[in-house]
């Protein structure tokens, strides 16, 4: 029998760490606070260095905290980032998602900037700003706004809007150690990129990546993993700063119609068909399935709208045959027409429809000794979230007194 409204509104009979109030997925005020307290102060994944192969190559990036950024490889080979905002009249400096610009020139009044962010071109500068040799404002005052940038962990470009932030290494910690040989032995290259704009909260996508109980959603995973030896022994391993790893397992791709093993292309240090997934706070993940590394990164647009960016990578040194194999491996379950991705997106889209329209609490309560269907990954994420937000995820209307993460 269905529950009454009163019963539906009751807190679940679980520890407060084992469920979240649906408000964390729907509330506009909480979302705006997330932008200030989390995205504006945390290392975010902007792009991959292979998207900037040559000096003066650039990529634009819509930062989740709201700023549009330019990521540029300098003539000194260093990757830097700047706000994509002209200091003159606030116009967008670069419109294309990628390109090469020795001088980044604003179309509005032709102010231009170099790869260091210096203003190097200002039409009729002296006529406008100087009286004789007395210039009230000079080019030195008119550079682009720089953003902290680091390249690492497989050649990804991370940015942090907080000038006073700690190094990227402090944020990632040991979370990627299990795949560091695979991703850092030789340069990687992105061979597929697409994005999905979904009416859902960004945390719901991250939650999905953080729990494998939803393997019931995917016939591919049921056949190739869940029915195979070792699946239920896989461990969920929490790391500091809200990150979590899903332990590896040998995947039997041949168990799915037309499937075959991925060992031929491989990655450095990979034997057979292992599968590792690491979720990084606050909204990106590394997903290595033997021959293809998929990296998801999110650009939340509102409490119930997010962009998920999907990059698939192989080795830069791939020969034609290796790359062809990786592309084929990738498209079976990933990519916009892959068998699994549509199902995952369908699920979070369904949550985006339902949660703002009747959900009260969302459960993260499964405990199975931190094995594959234990929901500890999500609990770990929300403990970190609470720490940043000063709110309990189970009751976000109350500010937490200590600001410390709740016990997982």
């Amino acid at each position, binding site marked *: 029998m269905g529950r009454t409204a009163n019963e539906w509104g009751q807190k679940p009979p679980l520890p407060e760490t084992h469920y979240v109030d649906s408000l964390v997925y729907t509330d506009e005020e909480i979302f705006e606070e997330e932008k200030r307290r989390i995205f504006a102060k945390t290392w975010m994944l902007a792009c991959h260095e292979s998207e900037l192969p040559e000096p003066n190559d650039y990529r634009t990036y819509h930062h989740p905290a709201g700023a549009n950024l330019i990521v540029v490889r300098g003539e000194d080979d260093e990757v830097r980032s700047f706000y994509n905002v002209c200091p003159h009249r606030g116009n967008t400096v670069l419109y294309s998602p*990628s390109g090469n610009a020795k001088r980044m020139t604003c179309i509005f009044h032709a102010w231009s900037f170099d790869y260091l962010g210096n203003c190097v071109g200002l039409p009729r500068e002296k006529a406008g700003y100087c009286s004789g040799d007395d210039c009230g404002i000079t080019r030195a005052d008119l550079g682009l706004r720089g953003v902290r940038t680091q390249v690492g962990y497989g050649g990804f470009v991370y940015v942090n809007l907080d000038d006073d932030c700690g190094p990227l290494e402090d944020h990632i910690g040991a979370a990627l150690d299990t795949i560091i040989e695979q991703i850092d032995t030789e340069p990687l290259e992105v061979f597929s990129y697409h*994005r*999905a704009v979904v009416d859902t909260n960004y945390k719901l996508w991250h939650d999905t990546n953080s729990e494998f109980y939803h393997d019931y959603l995917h*016939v591919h995973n049921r056949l190739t993993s869940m029915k195979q030896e070792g699946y239920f022994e896989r461990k969920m391993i929490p790391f500091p700063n809200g990150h979590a790893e899903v332990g590896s397992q040998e995947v039997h791709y041949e168990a799915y119609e037309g499937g075959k093993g991925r060992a031929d292309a491989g990655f450095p240090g990979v034997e057979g068909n292992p599968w590792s997934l690491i979720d990084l706070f606050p909204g990106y993940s590394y997903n290595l399935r033997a021959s293809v590394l998929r990296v998801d990164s999110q650009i939340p647009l509102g409490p119930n709208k997010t962009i998920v960016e999907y990059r698939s990578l192989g080795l830069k040194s791939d020969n034609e045959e290796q790359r062809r194999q990786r592309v*084929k491996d990738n*498209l079976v379950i990933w990519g916009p027409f892959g*068998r699994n991705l*549509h*199902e995952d997106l*369908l699920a979070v889209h369904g949550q985006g429809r339902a949660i703002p329209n009747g959900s009260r609490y969302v459960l993260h309560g499964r405990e199975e000794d931190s094995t594959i269907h234990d929901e500890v990954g999500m609990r770990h994420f929300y403990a970190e979230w609470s720490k940043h937000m000063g709110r309990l995820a189970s009751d976000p209307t109350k500010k937490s007194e200590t600001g410390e993460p709740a016990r997982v």
Partner: protein
Amino acid sequence: MITSIAADRGIHERVRELIYRSCLHLDEGDFEGWLGLCAPEFRYTITAYSPEIRKEMTWLDHDRDGMDGLFKMLPKHNSDHTPLTRHASVYLIEFDEAGSEASVLTSVVVYRTQLDGGSTDLFAVGKYFDTVSLEGETPLLAARNVRLDTREFGIGSHMPL
């Protein structure tokens, strides 16, 4: 010079009909009918160019058996079963010298109609680049590359376009 086959207006019509039937079969979920239009050597790809990474990308790539397997597995997958409807316009048909093959360029627009309420949205725009075998009694698809301009599909789809 116009080859003799190119001058045969009947073959133009049969090639056009092949393209349009391929759309109708997919619209109706008649996968056997669709495969019946494909030659044994058939290859199907969905590709696009990414301005973000400045690279060509492949999002689906199967031979005829691979497409058969994909169709057979569809009922076992979860989906919202939102129907897709294709609107095609054959732009160009060019024949090889031997008259054994035609290259066909077709503009294609794909709409998605929600089951709940029936609203229709644009799902994708692109082109079919088809190779048509003319060696049998009827023209058959020897290769189809669905070349997409659209690169953002919301929750995506399991269906070939």
